[in-house]
């Protein structure tokens, strides 16, 4: 039971009639271990590779937050064990400032890019696109494989940067110059920063290769009858995500290339009038603009947050419709709002730069555009709630996480409206209010969407179920814990407590938060432990989970559930089914659900 089982599920099968269980009915390729599990071109295997790599990253990124939360919660306490593990980074059992900044930087980088972008889109776009549109694989399986290996390379480089003598990049996940442009500025501006840039270049290549494939596959390889308006919302969401990625990641690349020039060629794109304390030298660089980098960064950075949330919106819509046994409410409005979000998200990046001294008129333009995003966001929330309304709710762990997603998205979205006002933002910028906003609306919400997806599609991935009891514990502890952690941060932020400091005890005005910070840290540790239980549940269930015995365990309408329980490369054994209806015929004409592959009956009431 090696990676064989981990990645592909068991090949020993349970018999039941009417269900094709054979893995390789149609395709008898010669597969070796290497082509099947490592350099696989099967989209399902690549999806699992992304998922498991993403999980490893999430554990690392989560662990980092536990370490810096220890510092924030117990700034006066020493933890000798930290010195045993991290040596000079934690002298006397107290983490050093350099290490603190490295931790928060890497935590952000890892979570935003490696878990919630690479891990999330990589897993679900790969898994669901061919299965739900009725294709045997991606348009270019080879490029798809390269996409994973570029991600893997990026991961290895980023991980290695943790072991450099000077440590990894530490100027924040947004790598603003001058810290990121001047090797002499801090330890974290040295080789670690180069590793960061190179890793991100591979990362961008990976997401471009993936995105190209997803778009092409969705637009060109749908099965007969699968018109665009019959696509499940997951596919729409993944399509818009890929389009956003393909349009905005290259701009980040431009920014990073200029940054590399500044670092190593002596240009001054971002640098001007600088005196470095550590070397006591004034630099010759003149005429550069650090704000230019912020523009290039946030032109990606803002769409990036939607690259993270759009796929989970799709996953949640799907899981929610299936488990409400009702059609999704307002399908067209859902697609339209995804589209609106996609367009608007390209036009609001400067709301991250309200306090850079921008022209107040420009600020108000960006305020307007930013607040406009609240409209499609609210439409989506409304439609989710109305989908739940009077539904026959089945509270599976996937469903609970979907509902939790909506709750988190509302809570975090509302604070976005505060931040989006350029005047309010003068007070709130770079405080814990901001931290609370984006962790709820993006961090926790996206994780919830991802969990919903994993619990829901696990049976399709591995032919087994995950353990429900652990699923429920996982949900409730995470849900309550996340609110306990992030809700209080709003108050800290309103009181003016800035982010990115490792010790607030010298501030008289923030002494009042001492107990609160300790409380937050304690809850964070508990929540982290529960995530480890999820990881345990995941791997345990791959081997020991309850077996799936029916083809369509959730009674869903979409095409992935018409494949064999453990589909081989090529997905369908015989013909790919033809599609005759939209993806949301639940509770129609007295029937619980009607598969998309079922022809429309002669006396069926009109639908889609």
């Amino acid at each position, binding site marked *: 039971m090696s990676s064989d089982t981990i990645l592909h599920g068991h090949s020993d099968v349970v018999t039941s009639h009417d269900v094709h269980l054979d893995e390789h009915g149609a395709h008898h390729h010669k597969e070796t271990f290497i082509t099947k599990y490592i350099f696989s071109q099967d989209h399902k295997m690549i999806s699992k590779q992304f998922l498991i790599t993403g999980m490893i990253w999430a554990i690392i990124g989560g662990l980092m937050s536990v370490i810096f939360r220890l510092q924030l919660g117990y700034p006066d306490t020493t933890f000798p064990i930290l010195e045993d593990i991290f040596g000079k980074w934690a002298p006397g059992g107290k983490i050093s400032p350099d290490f603190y900044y490295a931790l928060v930087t890497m935590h952000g980088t890892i979570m935003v890019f490696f878990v919630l972008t690479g891990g999330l889109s990589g897993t679900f776009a790969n898994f669901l696109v061919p299965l739900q549109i009725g294709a045997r694989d991606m348009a270019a399986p080879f490029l798809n494989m390269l996409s994973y290996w570029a991600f893997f390379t990026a991961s290895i480089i980023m991980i290695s940067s943790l072991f450099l003598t000077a440590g990894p990049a530490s100027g924040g996940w947004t790598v603003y110059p001058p810290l990121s442009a001047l090797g002499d500025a801090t330890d974290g501006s040295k080789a670690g920063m180069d590793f960061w840039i190179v890793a991100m270049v591979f990362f961008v290549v990976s997401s471009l290769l993936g995105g*190209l494939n997803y778009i092409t596959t969705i637009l060109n390889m749908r099965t007969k009858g699968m018109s665009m308006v019959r696509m499940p919302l997951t596919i729409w969401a993944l399509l818009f995500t890929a389009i956003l990625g393909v349009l905005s990641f290259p701009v980040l690349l431009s920014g990073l290339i200029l940054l590399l020039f500044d670092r190593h060629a002596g240009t001054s794109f971002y640098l001007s009038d600088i005196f470095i304390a550590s070397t006591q030298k004034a630099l010759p660089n003149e005429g550069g603009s650090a704000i230019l980098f912020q523009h290039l960064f946030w032109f990606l950075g803002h769409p990036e947050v939607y690259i993270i949330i759009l796929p989970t919106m799709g996953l949640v819509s799907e899981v929610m419709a299936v488990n409400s046994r009702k059609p999704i409410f307002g399908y067209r409005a859902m697609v339209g709002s995804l589209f609106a979000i996609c367009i608007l998200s390209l036009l609001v990046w400067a709301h991250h730069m309200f306090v850079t001294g921008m022209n107040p008129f420009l600020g108000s333009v960006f305020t307007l555009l930013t607040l406009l995003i609240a409209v499609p966001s609210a439409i989506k929330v409304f439609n989710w709630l109305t989908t739940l309304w009077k539904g026959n709710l089945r509270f599976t762990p996937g469903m609970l996480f979907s509902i939790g997603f909506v709750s988190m998205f509302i809570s975090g979205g509302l604070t976005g409206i505060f931040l989006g006002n350029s005047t309010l933002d003068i007070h709130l910028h770079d405080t814990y209010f901001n931290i609370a906003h984006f962790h709820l609306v993006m961090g926790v919400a996206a994780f919830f969407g991802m969990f919903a997806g994993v619990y829901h599609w696990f049976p399709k991935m591995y032919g087994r179920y995950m353990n429900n009891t652990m699923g429920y514990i996982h949900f409730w502890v995470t849900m309550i814990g996340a609110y306990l952690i992030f809700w209080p941060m709003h108050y800290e932020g309103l009181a003016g407590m800035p982010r990115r400091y490792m010790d607030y005890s010298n501030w008289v005005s923030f002494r009042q938060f001492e107990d609160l910070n300790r409380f937050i840290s304690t809850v964070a540790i508990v929540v982290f432990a529960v995530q480890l239980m999820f990881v345990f549940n995941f791997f345990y269930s791959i081997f020991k989970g309850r077996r799936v015995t029916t083809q369509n365990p959730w009674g869903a309408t979409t095409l992935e559930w018409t494949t064999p329980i453990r589909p081989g490369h090529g997905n369908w054994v015989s013909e790919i089914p033809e599609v005759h209806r939209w993806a949301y015929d639940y509770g129609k004409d007295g029937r619980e659900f009607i598969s998309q592959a079922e022809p429309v009956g002669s006396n069926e009431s009109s639908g889609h």
Partner: protein
Amino acid sequence: MLPSIEVKENVSEQRQKIHPHKFTMWIAIGSITMMFAGLTSAYIVKRQQPGWISFEIPRMFWLSTTAMLASSLAVQMALKAFKDRHIKSYKNLILLTAVLGMVFIILQILGFQQIWKTGLTFSGAGAAQFLYAIAGLHVLHVFGGVITMLVMFLKSLRKTSRSYNSVPIEVASTYWHFVDALWVYLFIFFLVIH
């Protein structure tokens, strides 16, 4: 399990208007365009800052532009020759394309040197530094095209397994025309705004 076999299988089963590989190339082109759009808008923003120094467009760039345009013609003729099954002239033309691509790269580098000699090196934050970064990145894209053309040339030398599938050369020529057009855009951009 060869990738090409897999794709053909997929494709033949599904309805399709445009070959997925061609479509993929078009999106990739959109993506590369965004990268250069990012860089040229950075240039425009930066131009308004104090300390901006511009440069004289070197004569070499007119020559390199000519080479680039000629190479586009060559690749177009190569495509036609392939479709007409004139494999011999296809081979020659595709090699010519690669050679012209190399000539372009060399001329660009000579052009950079001309500017460099006027004292505009990497230090500073003016038009010349942007040119090195932007046109340098473009040269890398052309180099990628040259490698592709050489690979296709070598493949056409193999006597066995001759393929009459025109998709690869169509995709490659689309890319080639794109890097050509991209240079023309950049050239005009630098001519007009500096």
